[in-house]
């Protein structure tokens, strides 16, 4: 086997190593690309809005406005990796919202119990849909299309198509902020503390990664790459924390943002490092091979569908909290935003590929696009058109680059870089030293022969 684009570029340079920030597997390249687009979008709007985009108030706004979509994206990416889809999340969110609002308004349930009730509603709905998908074998598209109708209607039955207000304490989870400590500093101490914690975690995990690589003797990036990586990432986190901490007095990092960050960390860990997570990728990538390896695929189907509904319930409660009431039109179209985020974030329609981080980045692309266009005064009509085109473009580039043998969106760019590094690297092995860096046509075909 002679291959040109085997990732033989061990230790060839920072690019491939920086990519490792986003975890292992073959989907890393795309995420690297989509992260690039996110940065481009933010910088673009930052310039166009004269610095409004990255102002504390706007950032807080973005988090408050989109955290529930991002939470849905976390569940959705797992569903999509499994090769399913969930169209019911908006309706499930709305139904949970009305139940929770009613429970507090009519039955005087204290708000913590109401949250528990809401989550239980999510579990029940999830078990219902999971049962149909996993054990009856109805395609998730149909099950959740039915769910979309059923729970939208159920919301309107329970709420009699009216809006039900929720008490202000409950509002905290959707519109609350980290509290101010009684210290004479002109920024929010807790927010900064979180930022420092995050930066420290970045440094620690890089050290751990290097220790592991040293131990197993696998390819390790040069020290300077790690240092640059840690400095850049920690810098971004601290800077973001600073922006959140220095907003209008009384505001800081939103509670809903904290819920989101915790969920991202937990679910990244679950999908990457647990048996359950590995089984999701295994079944999504090749169901037959997974079952022949002892994976109980139906059980995975069930829990992934159930998990999605629980997250939808949570998103619904956060939304209700933020808008201080639950209404009959809550959650309309959320499923589409969540699904779009996941696909922009590099997931494959056929399943098996996708990451939590990628989907969050994809969701942020949508969020900043939306937000930036709104700041520029673009009407909702055009925002919708532009969002649609971005989705098409993102997945289109992805499909095209896959056809030519790579794995990524903007990965075309990084692959070329890689090829150049590869041929430049003196130790690049096993490559007939003839063709040079002619970057046309289909490199992967050679491998398949």
């Amino acid at each position, binding site marked *: 086997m002679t291959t040109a684009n085997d990732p033989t570029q061990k230790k060839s340079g920072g690019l491939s190593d920086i990519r490792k920030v986003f975890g292992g597997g073959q989907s890393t390249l795309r995420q690297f690309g989509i992260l690039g687009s996110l940065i481009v979008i933010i910088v673009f709007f930052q310039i166009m809005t004269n610095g409004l985009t990255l102002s504390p108030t706007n950032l807080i706004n973005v988090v408050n406005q989109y955290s529930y979509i991002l939470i849905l994206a976390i569940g959705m990416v797992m569903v999509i990796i499994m090769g399913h889809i969930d169209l019911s999340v908006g309706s499930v969110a709305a139904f949970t919202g009305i139940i929770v609002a009613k429970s507090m308004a009519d039955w005087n349930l204290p708000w913590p119990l109401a949250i528990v009730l809401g989550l239980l509603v999510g579990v029940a709905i999830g078990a219902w849909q999971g049962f149909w998908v996993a054990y009856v074998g109805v395609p998730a598209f149909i099950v959740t299309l039915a769910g979309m109708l059923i729970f939208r209607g159920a919301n309107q039955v329970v709420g009699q198509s009216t809006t039900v207000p929720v008490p202000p304490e409950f509002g905290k989870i959707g519109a609350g902020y980290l509290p101010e400590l009684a210290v004479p500093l002109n920024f929010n101490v807790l927010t900064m503390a979180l930022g420092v914690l995050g930066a420290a975690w970045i440094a620690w995990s890089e050290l751990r990664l290097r220790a592991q690589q040293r131990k197993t003797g696998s390819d390790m990036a040069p020290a300077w790459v790690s240092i640059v990586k840690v400095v850049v990432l920690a810098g971004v986190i601290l800077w973001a924390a600073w922006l959140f901490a220095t907003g209008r007095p009384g505001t800081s990092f939103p509670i809903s943002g904290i819920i989101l960050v915790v969920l991202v960390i937990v679910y990244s860990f679950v999908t990457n490092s647990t048996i359950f997570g590995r089984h999701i990728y295994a079944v999504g990538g090749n169901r037959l091979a997974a079952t*022949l390896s002892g994976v109980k695929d139906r059980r995975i189907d069930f829990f992934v569908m159930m998990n999605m509904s629980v997250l939808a319930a949570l998103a619904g409660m956060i939304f209700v909290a933020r808008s201080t009431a639950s209404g009959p039109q809550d959650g309309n179209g959320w499923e589409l935003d969540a699904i779009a985020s996941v696909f922009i974030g590099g997931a494959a329609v056929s399943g098996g590929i996708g990451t939590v981080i990628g989907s969050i980045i994809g969701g942020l692309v949508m969020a900043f696009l939306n937000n930036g266009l709104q700041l520029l005064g673009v009407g909702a009509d055009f925002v919708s058109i532009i969002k649609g085109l971005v989705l098409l473009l993102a997945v289109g580039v992805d499909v095209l680059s896959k056809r030519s043998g790579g794995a990524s969106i903007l990965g075309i760019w990084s692959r070329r870089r890689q090829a150049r590094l590869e041929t430049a690297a003196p130790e690049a092995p096993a490559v007939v030293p003839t*063709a040079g860096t002619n970057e046309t046509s289909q490199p992967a075909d050679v491998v398949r022969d």
Partner: protein
Amino acid sequence: MSPTLRSSEAGHPPILEMRSITKEFPGVKALSDVSITVRAGEVHAICGENGAGKSTLMKVLSGVYPAGTYTGEIWFQGQRVEFKDIRASEHAGIAIIHQELALIPELSITENIFLGNEVAKRGRIDWVEAKREAVDLMARVGLEENPDTQIKHLGVGKQQLVEIAKALAKNVKLLILDEPTAALNEDDSQHLLDLILGLKGKGIASIMISHKLNEIEQIADSITIIRDGRAIETLDVRAGGVDEDRIIRGMVGRSLESRYPDRTPKIGEVFFEVRNWTVQHPQAPERLVAKNSSFHVRRGEIVGLAGLMGAGRTELAMSLFGRSYGTYVSGTIIKDGKEIVLKDVEAAIDHGLAYVSEDRKVLGLNLLDTIKRSIVSAKLRKIARRGVVDDTREAGIAEEYRKQLRIKAPSVDVGVSKLSGGNQQKVVLAKWMFTDPDLLILDEPTRGIDVGAKYEIYTIIQKLAAQGKGVILISSELPELLGIADRIYTVFEGQITDDIPASEATPENLMRSMTSAKKKAIA
């Protein structure tokens, strides 16, 4: 065929000449100055290890890589041709039949034969005429079926014939067959080879790519050997002196002393026994895929399972492996003196069974995954604590297997889809070795991989046996079974028909037991 042509066989005019074909991909020359000449009415075989450039050459010829993306000239029927796509090459009379068949399962034979080439008048398909022509074509390829039968109801062998009929419908002059018998049993293979010879008699030349050297030896008139993207030599089979060893020598560039590594088996006591195993077909309960089958495996023993395609070898293996196939009816499994019940795959793995499936891409691997994740995937619990996978150990273990099995990849973080067939198979073997099995069931472990890699796989199998594990080897290649098994069971229509020690087994007596139900008493 006209008698004037017959008089000077070797002097046939060339139907195809590919001159100095060079095809480059970024960073690698896939083909370098390759020239081949195919004469009218001959069967020309192309041999080479996987990755040698055979398929690339055929893609250049058939227009998959359009003219301009390679250098060199193609002359077909005396004219210089430059195909811009497959349609262009088909139009000229070149048809390629791929390893993976390109038929549509839900359509009928007639519909498939004329797909893209419909018998139509002003856009309206003339089904009567189409069917008449289909019956004609089917007769030419020796396919006895109703032309309205849906493709999904045909076996692979018959599907292959439909493919050829489809090519004939396009008035083909040169047929390219890429591993045509890879998925066929001996009978169907023979039929196909006879058909190729028959077509040759009617003036249709063929280019055949195959790993099965005995078939090549049997039907090829000349053989071009490709190695590392270069045409090494062209052998004239009619001139004599060309046998399998000669071809292999050309392919690998060295003489393989033996295709099977030497070994002195150390066989222990019986540790795995199956008694009266009976299983129903999953869709048709009246069909038994395993009928009252009993057999046993000793420690350190390699037991062959010989049978024709459809005999039920895979079905038997999978039904044992956690009831992955069919509906269990009756029978017991005894391991180490105790009866065990394997209700699902997890239980089978826990009891020390491993099943390396016949089709590694469909059943064996998640092609989206990396080497290291694939290797640990069948027993994640082994490296996990409270459900959390220890990725340091994962990387370490994968690295060990990479070295031990000599998986050719720069690191274990490489995706398995980027590996060659032989290396993918090694990953699958590593995956099952990682589960610490006592009994490995290997279903066609060397299918579609090249000679060098096969030798390595055999070595691995023998090492496993030497560690005291039992191995059941399912193979359609009798020489392979004779080469490395210690004892061979034959299977016919779901029944075990014979139990022959390797020392007494010959292709003839195996084939006899593989094709008849007369059951010899098994001691």
